[in-house]
Structure formats: structure tokens, C-alpha cells
């Protein structure tokens, strides 16, 4: 991943009369990075996206997207950004090809480029044979894929995806997440808005948690977990033998030991105790594995908003 910042927002604010939709947010996204934006409905995610695209004017602050100011150079920004809105809509009476050819022409692509890129994009999203079919016959999942194909046709340096998997079944969701990873592999920066925390966690390098128009937390899931769930470390230990749990509990610095499954233990520690645990267990037990447990974004999110509610 390069360090080039492709989306940068400083103090970005949007007010509608007395209502503050987005309140002085700072956000950076680097090339080839997938950043998830999370938060309850009405927390300012979509408004932020619209400001980054130049589709709505910020009241304060500034943004730079692909090197251009969306307020001053919205056309340059939109040339470089692929946008998939939530519940993407198409012209039902037109074929998939005609729909994408229209936006392709608006994007300035030649007829030849449209033909070539359309075939490639459709194959990549798993819809190789539906180009001539009317979109009216498409399922929701197919429409979402077609929306992603439109993004791919543009060959953008940045893709902004607003709740792309909201209407998909589990299998299609997994495929779609694979396509998002494919964008990252192409070097495209992805800004992903979603309510599905497990999906965000599975594809995103970093996460920004929105609350009431502000970015309340941002960083990797591990960083967020340390800030929200506490400063300790969580280690998963796989070991075979009697009294493993007791042995783990006896290690100085261990706060709690949970049995997740036979031979699998989760250990809450005050610090990184992997080496110490390995030394203690290795002589007496079959130590099968020891690693940091992946913190759950779901747990982070729930705990954070519980605390916000309790504080209120």
C-alpha cells in the first residue's frame, strides 16, 4: 500500500438550518486502502460521501479528493471517483448495456472504450451473459453487481460504496466482498459505508465510527478495540491436556480465562503474555497454537454506543 492520501477532509461540516448533519470531521484515505465508515442512521455518513463527491456543498471546512477540491472541481473529482449509492437504481426499460453505456458516455468514454470495458466489468462482477437483458428483469443482487460494474467501467482511483451489501443474500454478500477486495488489489482506494460490522471488519484496513455528525473513533479494529474495550490484550490459546485453564489463570498478568471450545481458551491479559504462556504450557501440555484474538468490531460498536447512551 502506498502512502499517497487520495481523500482528505479537514473540518468538513454540513448544516441544514439549525441541524448539524456533519460536524467538523477530519478524514484521510490512502491509495489502495479500504476504509469503512460506520454509524447509526442519520450520523452523517451519506452526507459526508455527497460532500466528497461534490454533490452537496459543505458549510465549512475543505476536502481534497484525488487531488481536486470537490467544491471547485467537481467534474475532475467525479471523473476519478466511482460511486455506488445505496439501493442503486437503473432505467428499467433499458438493457444493462444501455444503462451503463449512458453513464459511460457521461463519463466521457468513447463507444469503443464502453464496449470493451462493459464486457470486462460484467465478467468481473459475475454477470457475463446479461448485457442485452432489460434491467427490469434483474434481482436486487444483480442490480448491485451491475452498479459495481459501472464503478469498474470508470476505472476509478477511488471507489465510494454506500451500503453496497444491504440488500444482498449471504452468498452474494461474500462474493461482493471479494469484488471489493479485488478493487483494493487494483490499487483503488475504497470508502465503504455499511451497517454490517462483520463485513466491514473482514475487508477494511481502517474504520471511522460516526456519531451525531462527528467521527467518534477511527483506526484499525485492533486500535478501536483497545480504546473501547480496554487497554489489555486478548490471546487465543489452543492446548491439549488436563488443567490447562488453571495453569493459564496462574500466569501473572492474566485477568480472565474463558473456554471457547474443547482445547481452545481465550485469555484476557494486562500485556502481551504470549511468550510467558508458551513457556508455562510447553513442558506439561501439547501447545497447538497461540495468537492474538481478533477483536470483534461488533463488540466495539455495541460497547461504544452503550457507553454513549449511559453517558447521556
Amino acid at each position: 500500500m502506498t502512502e499517497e492520501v487520495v481523500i482528505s477532509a479537514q473540518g468538513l461540516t454540513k448544516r441544514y438550518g439549525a441541524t448539524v448533519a456533519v460536524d467538523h470531521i477530519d478524514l484521510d484515505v490512502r491509495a489502495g486502502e479500504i476504509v469503512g465508515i460506520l454509524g447509526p442512521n442519520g450520523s452523517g455518513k451519506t452526507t459526508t460521501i455527497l460532500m466528497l463527491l461534490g454533490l452537496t456543498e459543505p458549510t465549512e471546512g475543505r476536502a481534497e479528493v484525488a487531488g481536486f477540491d470537490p467544491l471547485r472541481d467537481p467534474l475532475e473529482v467525479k471523473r476519478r471517483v466511482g460511486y455506488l449509492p445505496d439501493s442503486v437504481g437503473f432505467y428499467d426499460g433499458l438493457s444493462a448495456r444501455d444503462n451503463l453505456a449512458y453513464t459511460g458516455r457521461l463519463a466521457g468514454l468513447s463507444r469503443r472504450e464502453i464496449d470493451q470495458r462493459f464486457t470486462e466489468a460484467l465478467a468481473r462482477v459475475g454477470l457475463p451473459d446479461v448485457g442485452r437483458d432489460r434491467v427490469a428483469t434483474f434481482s436486487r443482487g444483480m442490480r448491485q453487481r451491475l452498479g459495481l460494474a459501472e464503478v469498474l467501467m470508470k476505472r476509478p482511483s477511488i471507489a465510494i460504496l454506500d451500503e453496497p451489501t444491504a440488500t444482498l443474500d449471504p452468498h452474494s454478500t461474500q462474493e461482493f466482498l471479494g469484488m471489493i477486495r479485488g478493487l483494493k488489489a487494483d490499487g483503488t482506494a475504497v470508502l465503504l459505508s455499511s451497517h454490517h460490522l462483520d463485513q466491514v471488519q473482514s475487508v477494511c484496513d481502517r474504520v471511522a465510527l460516526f456519531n451525531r455528525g462527528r467521527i467518534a473513533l477511527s483506526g484499525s479494529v485492533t486500535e478501536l478495540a483497545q480504546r473501547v474495550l480496554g487497554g489489555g490484550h486478548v490471546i487465543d490459546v489452543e492446548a491439549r491436556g488436563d488443567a490447562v485453564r488453571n495453569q493459564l489463570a496462574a500466569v501473572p498478568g492474566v485477568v480472565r480465562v474463558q473456554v471457547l471450545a474443547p482445547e481452545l481458551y481465550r485469555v484476557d491479559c494486562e500485556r502481551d503474555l504470549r511468550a510467558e504462556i508458551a513457556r508455562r504450557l510447553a513442558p506439561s501440555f501439547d501447545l497447538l497454537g497461540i495468537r492474538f484474538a481478533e477483536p470483534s468490531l461488533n463488540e466495539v460498536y455495541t460497547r461504544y454506543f452503550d457507553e454513549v447512551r449511559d453517558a447521556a
Partner: protein
Amino acid sequence: MRRRGSPFTGVGVVLAKETADYLSGARMWVLEALVFLTAIAAAYAAILSIRANIGESPFLFLRLLTMAQDPLPSFIALLGFLIPLIAIAIGFDAINGEFTRRTLSRVLAQPIYRDALLLGKFLAGLVALAIGLFSLWLLTIGLGLLLLGLPPNTEEMVRMLGFLVATIAYGGVWLAVALLFSVVFRAPATAALAALGVWLLFSLFWSVVTPLVATLIAGPPEGIFGPNIAYLDTAQVLDRISPNTLYAEIALALLQPATRALGPVLYSQVQGALLGAPLPAAQSFILVWPQLTGLVAAMIVIFAIAYVVFQRQEIRA
């Protein structure tokens, strides 16, 4: 802050797509068929009447458009009634349809300004309307050639072309009204109803409203010494707020060459005039120039209002 890039980027693409949609859509086909059938029936009925009295007028083709034959009204009366309906049918869901289909944010995420979308849609509607009317114009002339056995003279062609342009401008006004409501109301049905309401106001109720308002402003129609001129002037000004009045006056002056004035004429003004003698086409055009520019201006002003409202709207679906 000034935006970079032309606001017209993408107008051509929107224009081409929307024109194709309008011309191939079932809604347009139905409306066009309705107009063609009724207008051609009216023209045919007029031809039968004209053939019986051929030689009475040097402007046979113009009579084709103006002559009514029971039970059908004249060709121009039918057009004046139906053109607003077509224009409203074209424009009532132009913008709110994009919202309801959830295509607006997708389209505006492409490198175009919303100016281009609105202008492209308006121009496409106007082009579709113009294509339909031009076809009808050619068809009527063809029918006249076949059944009358005479070609139209140059004067008639010029007047009919002027009438065609005025009809397109008249349709443009109603298209702009429909487009405005499609921007203001998110529900297409509400926009259609609002536009039809305005049309009904001007086509049915305006002739009732204007005398009442004119009386309130300028006093009763009859004064002590005869007609109240202030009342007549006020009523005429109010009447001309309606695009239907402007269009009817243009049709009258262009298609009935003997028309020498539009509105009340004093006896002193017609002294020495050869009543019933046709005016040259150029004189008739001078006579209707204010009405024609009025229609074009109304179209531009209503479009400009729609433009301002659209610019201030949030794009979020």
C-alpha cells in the same frame, strides 16, 4: 466559489438519451396517435367543406387549419387543447422520476453538473415535441395536396411555418411548467396533477377570472358614455397572462391574414382601412411578435425558476 468546467458538459448525451426515450416510449406513442387522429380528422372535415367552396379564398391551406366542421372543432383549436397535454405528459416526471427510480445520484456522480441534466431533459422534450409537430405539419400539407389538388403558395408556407414555431413555443411553455412541478414535487402523480391544474385554470377558468379581476381593478365593463376602455385594457392584459390567449392570438393573426389588430379597436383606428383585405405575412408577423416573444419569455422564465429550485435541492434519494 466559482466552479470549474462547463455547465453544459454532458448536455448532448442527456439530450440524445432522453429524446430516444420520449420518442420510443408508449406514453408518447399514445399521445401522438391521439393528436394525429383528431387533427387529421379535423383537417379532413375542413377539406370537405373547402372543396365545396373552392375559389372563395386565396388561402385554402390556411383555411384547412382554421375551419371547423361540426361536430369537430378546427385543427388549431384541437392543437391548442392537446399540445399542453402532450407537453405535461412529457415533463411531469422528468426529475422526480429520477428520484423515484433512484437513478439521480448515479447519474450526477458522473462528471456532469445538474445544469446539464435539467437542460438536456428540457431540450429533449422540446425536440420530441418539435419532431411530432413537424410530422403533423407535413402530414397536413400532404393531405391538403392530395385532397385539394393544389400546392400551398409561398405566403401560406411562411405563415404555416410561423404557426409551427409558435406551436412549439406554446408546447415549450407547458413543458417548462411540467418540468418545474417535476422539480418541486417528489411524487410524479402530484406533479402531473399540479400541472394539469394550471392548464385547467388557463384553459377553462381564466376567461371567468379575468372579467372579475378586471372589474375589481378598473370598474365595470360599461361606462356612462359606452364601453369602459380602462376595463378593456385591464382585461386584455390579464387575458394575456395565459399562454392559451397568446397562442390563440398568434394563430388568429397568422392563419387569418385579414386580421389587422388583436384586442379592442376604436372606430377611429379603422377609418380608411380596407376591411377584409389580407395583410402581408411580414405585417402579420409584426402583429404577433409581442405574443411570440411573450411565449418564449414565459418558457425561459419558468425554466429558470425550475433551474434555481433544482440547484437548491439535495440530491440524496
